[in-house]
């Protein structure tokens, strides 16, 4: 093997540090690698000379938008600043590590994070989506945790656009093909179709892992003389420049295909890597560990060294290669998947190698931790990188990008749905309302997502207590006590387009509500901020407002952001996507046996509507179906959300509800249908009284998207207690119906009755019709 690298080493004219110092006028392709003139000048200033080719490769990927957060950093600070002591009490590891860690109690800790893999998933949907799962799972392993579940929020273009099928089939098959092979249940996600995502689909991936407190690992290289090892898959030519060239620029059809910048995944290698790492953790065989994702070895060496207390020196020809013709710069930039880097004390080297041999995982010792404070990378003994690792990993450029409220925002908000051209002929008669409900539940965004979720394994692991289509995914952590976690992800790009500040808060409110609806206590937040180009002041304003809104709302709800990801440049030409801050909320169960499913099954139970309904149709699914987007996003009332959450959590804990479903997109109409179809059990509902109380008509009652609402099914024996609890908290509640197992239909009294079979056909037919 070593012969190969020796041969290849001789093929290049290696640009050493010595050479760089001696040849200051050599022109380097910094622009092709994605650096701007001012950034290249900064690199020269930091080094006091021109960079070597290898150094340029490292700076170009690490200073990319994707890795450095240079446009968002100034705003993201708010997530760390708007935090109270109370919010910090369960945070074991905060923002900045691979993923934040939250205390679950009983010595257990949980880590979760959501990330984007948008650009690769458009270029090559299967591999893009697959490696998105792979990357986020390695982030979780890097913290010392066993990954226990994944979720995937997706946004694609118009359902009937020919290219949507390409992206949809590829991405879903990729998530399934990779995730199913890892033994991780897929417990939920989202699926939204909108033409605004046609050229920029969003493929976000979330992973959650659990560990004992003492097993938490951090990514740092400490301890003079400790060994640095690279293990897992070999390094190949895939994904070179993925972070810089692909994820940090807008697509432009006039340029060559960027396919070589997409990584290729091998889920079998990842599964073996997971088990192998867990065995290393169990034996306390590593001092520090870092996964190789964006920016590959550049990122892993510079971050480990920067976070450590010394320096690091590695020999790059020791890296095991899939392709022996790779140049040093390519090796440093390659984003080949299924690789990890670890720091091992000399005493543990033999034990480390034994674990590698057991799992037949390849590894190579690259170098060691030094006391110089420098990151030195050599090629056959010649120094090709000599940098202060902080300047690569942490002290990249930071931009205060100009932003301003767009001049079209006022006109957009003034264009309300009610009274618009698209609102003409609003359904009013019983027949029209029935047709409207059927149209809504068959629509691309509200239809059943079984076609997708049936391609994912939700059972593996044996700890899945709830999964899609319930409001939150629920996983048991401790088999003895039933201690567990709930997770939900949400975002509404239309709301956020209408009002970025409140739209981001609505995403948080819905995820919070979903977790509480399942019965879990919300604890922590991870976010994936998907936006257009930060160089557009309109987009930058959306981003700034969304971050300000989200951080304010986290403070008000008392749950901290523990990590996340920013994905910018999601735009085609000058058209950005709707600002789409996907928010994941993690909740805690003392015992997941208390979880509340989203549908009713017991005949005779009373159905209650919690909350009040206002005429809020702007940005709604109904308005979307009519082709209208304008007006004001639904009103945010976080205090109301908190009160609703407490009621739902208490009701679940004390056995007062057997079903609960939050009201969000599609309003009450969607919720009633979904809760009936969940366990194929119908209901009789009367809306006159509650509509009169709220002063709205039946259409508004059914289709408005007012927040802070949920429906619950209450056993007869619990009705008094449940009512008393709501009354004592002065929370509006109304008995709107009863579960009717015999009827086999959803009966909205005085309006219409639809058999469940007809609802099911409408709800479940849409995705198979379009995607086969």
């Amino acid at each position, binding site marked *: 093997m070593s012969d190969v690298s020796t041969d290849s080493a001789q093929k290049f004219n290696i640009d050493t540090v010595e050479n760089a110092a001696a040849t200051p006028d050599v022109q380097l392709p910094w622009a092709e690698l994605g650096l701007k003139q001012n950034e290249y000048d900064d690199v020269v200033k930091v080094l006091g000379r021109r960079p070597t080719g290898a150094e340029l490769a490292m700076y170009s990927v690490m200073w990319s938008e994707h890795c450095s957060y240079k446009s968002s950093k100034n705003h993201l600070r708010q997530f760390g600043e708007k935090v109270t002591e109370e919010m910090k009490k369960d945070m074991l590891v905060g923002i900045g590590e691979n993923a934040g860690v939250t205390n679950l109690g009983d010595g257990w800790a949980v880590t979760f994070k959501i990330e984007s893999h948008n650009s690769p998933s458009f270029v090559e949907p299967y591999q893009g989506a697959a490696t998105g799962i792979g990357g986020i799972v390695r982030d979780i392993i890097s913290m010392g945790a066993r990954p226990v579940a994944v979720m995937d929020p997706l946004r694609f273009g118009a359902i009937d656009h020919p290219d949507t099928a390409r992206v949809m089939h590829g991405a879903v*098959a990729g998530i399934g*093909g990779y995730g199913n*092979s890892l033994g991780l249940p897929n417990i939920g996600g989202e699926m939204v179709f909108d033409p605004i995502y046609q050229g920029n689909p969003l493929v976000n991936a979330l992973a959650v892992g659990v560990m004992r407190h*003492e097993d938490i690992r951090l990514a740092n290289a400490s301890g003079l003389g400790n060994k640095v090892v690279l293990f897992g898959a070999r390094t190949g030519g895939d994904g070179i420049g993925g972070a810089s060239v692909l994820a940090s620029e807008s697509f432009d059809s006039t340029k060559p295909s960027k396919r070589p910048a997409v990584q290729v995944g091998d889920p*079998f290698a990842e599964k073996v890597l997971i088990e192998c790492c*867990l065995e290393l953790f169990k034996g306390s065989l590593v001092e520090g560990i870092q996964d190789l994702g964006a920016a590959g070895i550049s990122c892993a060496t510079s971050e480990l060294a920067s976070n450590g207390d010394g320096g690091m020196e590695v020999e790059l020809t020791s890296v095991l290669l899939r392709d022996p013709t790779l140049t040093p710069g390519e090796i440093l930039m390659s984003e080949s998947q299924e690789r990890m880097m670890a720091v091992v004390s000399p005493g543990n080297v033999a034990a480390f190698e034994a674990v590698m041999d057991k799992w037949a995982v390849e590894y190579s010792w690259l170098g060691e931790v030094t006391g110089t404070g420098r990151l030195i990378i050599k090629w056959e003994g010649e120094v090709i990188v000599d940098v202060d690792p902080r300047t690569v990993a942490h002290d990249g450029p930071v931009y205060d990008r100009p932003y301003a409220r767009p001049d079209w925002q006022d006109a957009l908000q003034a264009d309300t749905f009610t009274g618009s051209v698209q609102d003409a002929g609003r359904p009013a008669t019983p027949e029209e309302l029935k047709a409207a409900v059927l149209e809504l539940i068959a629509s691309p965004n509200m239809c059943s997502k079984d076609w997708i979720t049936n391609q994912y394994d939700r*059972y*593996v692991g044996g700890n899945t207590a709830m999964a899609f289509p319930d409001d939150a995914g629920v996983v048991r952590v401790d088999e003895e006590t039933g201690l567990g976690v709930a997770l939900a992800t949400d975002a509404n790009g239309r709301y956020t387009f209408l009002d970025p500040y409140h739209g981001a808060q609505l995403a948080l409110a819905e995820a919070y509500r979903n977790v509480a609806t399942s019965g879990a206590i919300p604890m922590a937040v991870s976010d994936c901020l998907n936006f257009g180009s930060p160089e557009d002041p309109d987009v930058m304003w959306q981003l700034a407002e969304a971050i300000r809104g989200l951080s304010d709302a986290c403070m008000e709800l008392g749950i901290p952001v523990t990590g996340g990801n920013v994905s910018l440049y999601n735009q085609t030409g000058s058209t950005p996507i709707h600002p789409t801050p996907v928010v994941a909320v993690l909740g805690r169960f003392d015992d997941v046996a208390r979880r509340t499913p989203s549908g009713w099954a017991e005949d005779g139970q009373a159905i209650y509507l919690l909350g009040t309904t206002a005429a809020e149709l702007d940005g709604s699914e109904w308005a979307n179906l009519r082709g209208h987007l304008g007006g004001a996003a639904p009103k945010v009332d976080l205090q109301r959300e908190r009160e609703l959450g407490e009621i739902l959590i208490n009701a679940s804990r004390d056995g007062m509800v057997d079903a609960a479903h939050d009201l969000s997109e599609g309003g009450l109409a969607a919720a009633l249908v979904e809760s009936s179809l969940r366990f194929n059990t119908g209901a009789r509902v009367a809306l006159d009284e509650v509509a009169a109380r709220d002063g709205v008509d039946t259409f508004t009652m059914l289709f408005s998207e007012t927040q802070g609402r949920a429906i619950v099914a209450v056993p007869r024996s619990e009705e008094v207690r449940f009512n008393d609890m709501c009354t004592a908290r002065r929370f509006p509640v109304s008995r709107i119906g009863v579960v009717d197992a015999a009827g086999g239909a959803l009966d909205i009294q005085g309006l219409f009755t639809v058999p469940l079979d007809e609802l099911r056909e409408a709800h479940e037919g849409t995705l198979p019709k379009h995607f086969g």
Partner: protein
Amino acid sequence: MTETPLIGSYPAGQGGAPLNGARIGVVTFPGTLDDRDAARAVRVSGATAVELWHGDSSLGGVDAVIIPGGFSYGDYLRAGAIARFAPLMAKIVDAANSDALLPVLGICNGFQILTEAHLLPGSMIKNDHLKFLCRDQVLRVENNATAWTNAYAAGQDITVPLKNQDGQYIADEKTLDALEAEGRVAFRYVGANPNGSRRDIAGISNAAGNVVGLMPHPEHAVEAGYGPGHTGTDGLGFFTSVLNTLLGGK
């Protein structure tokens, strides 16, 4: 450092005294996914689960073996094609064919491995709809006289999860006729055939009835709240069946 249990692995000595000391091995290959789940099902049934490693050359004196689901060796080449050459598989084949009639259950990838190892006839190809499919599946117990099905009634319908990409059971007509004639079709899919399997076959046994393979996952229907429909535990019968067999009841 204290050794802490991973998800899905119980601390030693937990769960009370194992039933009559029955020890049931669960094989792990690189790429196996449902091994912890199979071990949990064994424990729930009252027996002791024993971890077996594919590279081992001894069965460690276990009383029965489960080859769980997953993607052994990534299912590269063909599902189960590489795993059958593991050192432990030779031991399993010998023990299953010996007079001792070691009970062997292959679930999903385990079933695929058993066909590759020629303990069971036929093979699995990609689902006819070409997609991975995960759903709750009704099965009819066609033969309740095997080591792994004797706790069920003949003709009983049970619901367990189904989840696979390569689940379409195929064999030549002569083999299928022989399986039917000898009563070796252990399970059939009820309702719509989920993958195009010949004659709706979900699982089969060998002639002696000690080796059973099926594509659906009974180990995911042993605890109320974690199986089909939030309540289903229909899969537990597999694991109590083998205890009946080992205790000489059936």
